[in-house]
């Protein structure tokens, strides 16, 4: 039976950047030591006319263009984000319309902090596997919020990635997916509030590490694999340190994680984080490469995936997300606030 997997992918990161040192300057902190401590040196900033919908559309259009999929055959669109432009009115329909998938499709928006995008992938896998749809599109995108002056501000950034899930003509097979989900209130945002709250150090061990390590261990147990069986490992990247620490504890090497670690140069794109990291790996992966992906969403949960790249990847026009990231323009804190719409 045809394996379910990735038929196409597209990623997008806005052009503007702000350095962690510039943010620190405004708040009277030591920028150099904060950057080094977090492993985040600069982060992406959306332009004043960009939001989660526009980023999702850009990523989705790239996925459709590069995969050559007929958008009318996309039977589902799910957009996962913590910063949907509307609290009520889906981003998914805007994307569906903009890629020409409407009206024969189902759609909904997802929220599960930073792992809403991978939850969307799992849903699409189910719909494709059961032959309910031919292709499904899963997007993780955000223009992440953080309260000015809060520790999260150094990393909260903007970006997104779209994945087209299908059967048969896949560039990467998803061999298995498992999840580990608990009710862990480490980071949240109340209805109507502009900024999230979080449990500071509580977001580490009981939250990120518990979920990520448990899900990954469960996956490897199910697959009967060890870290050395994988060529790449992509973990959710709230900063540059957590994924490395998780990797080490699980037995993965720095080299396996590096390719998919973009956080140091674009920050934490929240729902886009793991998916943009995966796109960087797919940009360079070779047929037969095996990739382990574990996302993390506060609240809390992790979705883990075991992926094998097929030889169809050689015909795929790679996104070159690292090249896109290199095309950047720095802004100062005032422009950053203005672009993010903080001055209403």
């Amino acid at each position, binding site marked *: 039976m045809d394996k379910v997997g990735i038929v196409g992918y597209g990623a997008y990161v806005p052009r503007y950047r702000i350095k962690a040192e510039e943010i620190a300057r405004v708040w009277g902190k030591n920028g150099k030591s904060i950057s080094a401590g977090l492993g985040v040196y600069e982060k992406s900033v959306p332009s004043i006319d960009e*939001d989660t919908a526009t980023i999702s559309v850009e990523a989705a259009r790239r996925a459709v263009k590069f995969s050559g999929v007929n958008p009318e055959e996309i039977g589902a669109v799910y957009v996962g984000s913590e910063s949907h432009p509307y609290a009520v009115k889906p981003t998914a329909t805007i994307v569906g*319309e*903009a890629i020409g998938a409407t009206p024969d499709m189902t759609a909904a928006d997802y929220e599960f902090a930073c792992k809403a995008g991978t939850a969307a992938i799992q849903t699409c896998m189910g719909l494709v596997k059961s032959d309910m749809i031919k292709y499904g599109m899963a997007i993780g995108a955000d223009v992440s919020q953080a309260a000015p002056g809060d520790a999260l501000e150094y990393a909260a950034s903007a970006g997104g990635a779209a994945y087209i899930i299908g059967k048969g003509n896949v560039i990467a097979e998803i061999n298995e997916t498992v999840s580990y989900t608990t009710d862990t209130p480490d980071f949240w945002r109340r209805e109507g509030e502009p900024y999230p709250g979080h449990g500071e150090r509580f977001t580490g061990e009981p939250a990120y590490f518990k979920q990520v390590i448990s899900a990954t261990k469960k996956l490897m147990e199910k697959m009967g694999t060890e870290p050395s069986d994988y060529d790449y490992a992509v973990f959710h990247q709230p900063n540059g340190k957590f994924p490395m620490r998780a990797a080490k504890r699980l037995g993965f090497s720095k080299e396996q994680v590096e390719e998919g670690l973009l956080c140091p140069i674009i920050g934490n794109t929240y729902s886009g984080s793991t998916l943009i990291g995966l796109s960087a790996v797919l940009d360079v992966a070779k047929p037969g490469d095996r990739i382990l992906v574990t996302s993390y969403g506060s609240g809390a949960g992790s979705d883990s995936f075991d992926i094998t790249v097929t030889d169809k990847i050689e015909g795929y026009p790679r996104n070159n997300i690292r090249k896109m990231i290199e095309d950047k323009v720095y802004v100062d804190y005032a422009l950053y606030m203005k672009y993010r719409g903080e001055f209403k």
Partner: protein
Amino acid sequence: MGIARYWREIPQRYNLIGTKCGSCGRIYFPPRAICPVCRRKSIGKMEEYKLKGTGTVETYTIIYTPPPHFEGEEPYAIALIKMDEGCYLMGEIVDCDFEDIHIGMKVEACFRRIEEDGTRGAIQYGYKFKKAE
């Protein structure tokens, strides 16, 4: 802008859907009911046509004094663009330093927020243009 008015134009605003004259093949954006060249011969022959989204800058300006809905976004660049299909349209050029914009510059369409109806109203998305590779 009213909801219905904006919604009606989503095919144009999101996907650059214009019309092609079934008689002479000329492409128009926004859509037309008849071809101004073929006139009567084109009645009933105008077909939907999706523009590629690529074109060149015919002329441009930088707006420093914006209209009310665009306050806070100035300065921004607006260009008259000749699309590859031969028709012209107007749009903002984004993600490009003003000094780099020039007549003849190749551009491609991208998807951005255009306007919003205050904080409680709808958001209006549409096309803007970036420098093409």
